[in-house]
């Protein structure tokens, strides 16, 4: 069973969000890293890049396949996890910690309320699996 910490918010594209003031840290969920398998490459945007909500901001690759990662909220990138260049496996080993991907400045902090709670996200995973 995938780990979905209660203090985070989630998207249906399997990103997690840790808001703090007008900023938020973003990564992919334990469920997503498990589905992907061994991550061998992560491509991230540059600091200053701006994205709309649901726009792809980067990609994460297992040996098998490439998956895009999507912006959970509109905003601009204020920090990227450079350590994923050398150690992409952190996405598998610690998806909610060292495997974080970007920190963003949120355009509209009210959007955070529209994200899924951990319970809603867990239900969503179950629905997806049942399809």
């Amino acid at each position, binding site marked *: 069973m995938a780990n979905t910490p209660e203090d985070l918010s989630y998207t249906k594209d399997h990103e997690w969000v840790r808001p703090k003031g007008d900023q938020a840290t973003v990564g992919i969920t334990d469920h997503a890293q498990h589905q992907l398998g061994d991550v061998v490459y992560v491509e991230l945007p540059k600091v200053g890049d701006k994205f709309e909500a649901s726009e792809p901001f980067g990609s994460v*690759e297992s040996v*098998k396949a490439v998956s895009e990662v999507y912006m959970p909220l509109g905003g601009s990138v204020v920090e990227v996890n450079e350590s994923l260049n050398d150690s992409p496996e952190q996405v598998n080993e610690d998806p909610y910690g060292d495997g974080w991907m970007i920190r963003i400045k949120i355009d509209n902090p009210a959007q955070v309320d529209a994200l899924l709670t951990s319970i809603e996200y867990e239900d969503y995973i179950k629905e997806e699996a049942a399809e």
Partner: protein
Amino acid sequence: MLKRTPLYEAHVSIGARMVEFAGWQMPVQYSGHVQEHMAVREAAGLFDVSHMGEVELRGADALALVQRISTNDASKLEDNQVQYSTMTNETGGVIDDLLVYRFNSDSFLLVVNAGGSDSDFAWIKDHANDLNVEVHNTSAAFALLALQGPRAEQILQTLTDHMLDRIPYYWSQRVLVDGVACRVSRTGYTGEDGFEILCDSAIARRLWNRLLITGADRGLIPCGLAARNTLRLEAAFRLYGHDMDETTTPLEAGLGWVVKLAKGDFIGRDALSKQKEEGLKRKLAGFEVLDRAPARDGYPVVIDDKEVGVVTSGSPAPYLKKNIGLAYLPTEYATVGTALSIVIRGRNVPARVVETPFYKRKRVYD
């Protein structure tokens, strides 16, 4: 409706992730893609490849039919020998690649890819009308297991009295495995030593389980299609539908060694003969990406800002720990050392043409 192999329940029961492949529900991975890949390079892996098609040819003209539809020279085969070959159409395009098993002068078995097994069967039958040969599609009757890796022989040996070291590379034998008659060949699609075991569908699950239990303490694990694909790519084995199809010839695909123009007539011979005379305009080449970003199927290949080809197979190589791939390139560029760029999400990433196979094991049998 997707087809299932006789091992479908066995896969699901051990938690395999199942995917659709060529109309079949197949295990793509069990414990993990990289772990499975490494097990085959360093110990052993067991694959269910029962989705592959089998076509039996029986009768006095069985050899004549093989010679007509395939590019290699099957007249050179002795009883129990196996041969890699391609089937081509009139224009020399590859319809499929296959293994030709000779059992005796009037009995052959063709093992073809899953995707083409029905159309291959129809094609073969269509070209048998004037010959004294029966053509049977026996795909459903057989399961095919691939036991691959440096420990494959020791593992299989524990289940049979047959001296497996007497089966050379690309030969087969009828072998009692765990008391059941199977056709065992020293063949595979991984670049390692190993065997492919053709058995009755009805006993496949028992044999699968016996092999896994017997081999467990030697590091044998079940392996899925994901590992099979990266293993074959490291060995630079071509994948039908990706590295060759009806728009490419075996000569362009670097399979000239299985095109025997001197053997007599076969379908596609005139076209291939003409292409050989005129010289190849393009060739399949292996490349290594000089960057962390992996190349993937379909990515454009660029030289001096001009698109010169497309990646037909591209992936990180788990054993070699490099990003590798195959692509058709104009002949003048298909030489080792040529500098290329692969276009990865809009970025020109440097790569260069390298020797293939990318990975070559130390051969014990040859």
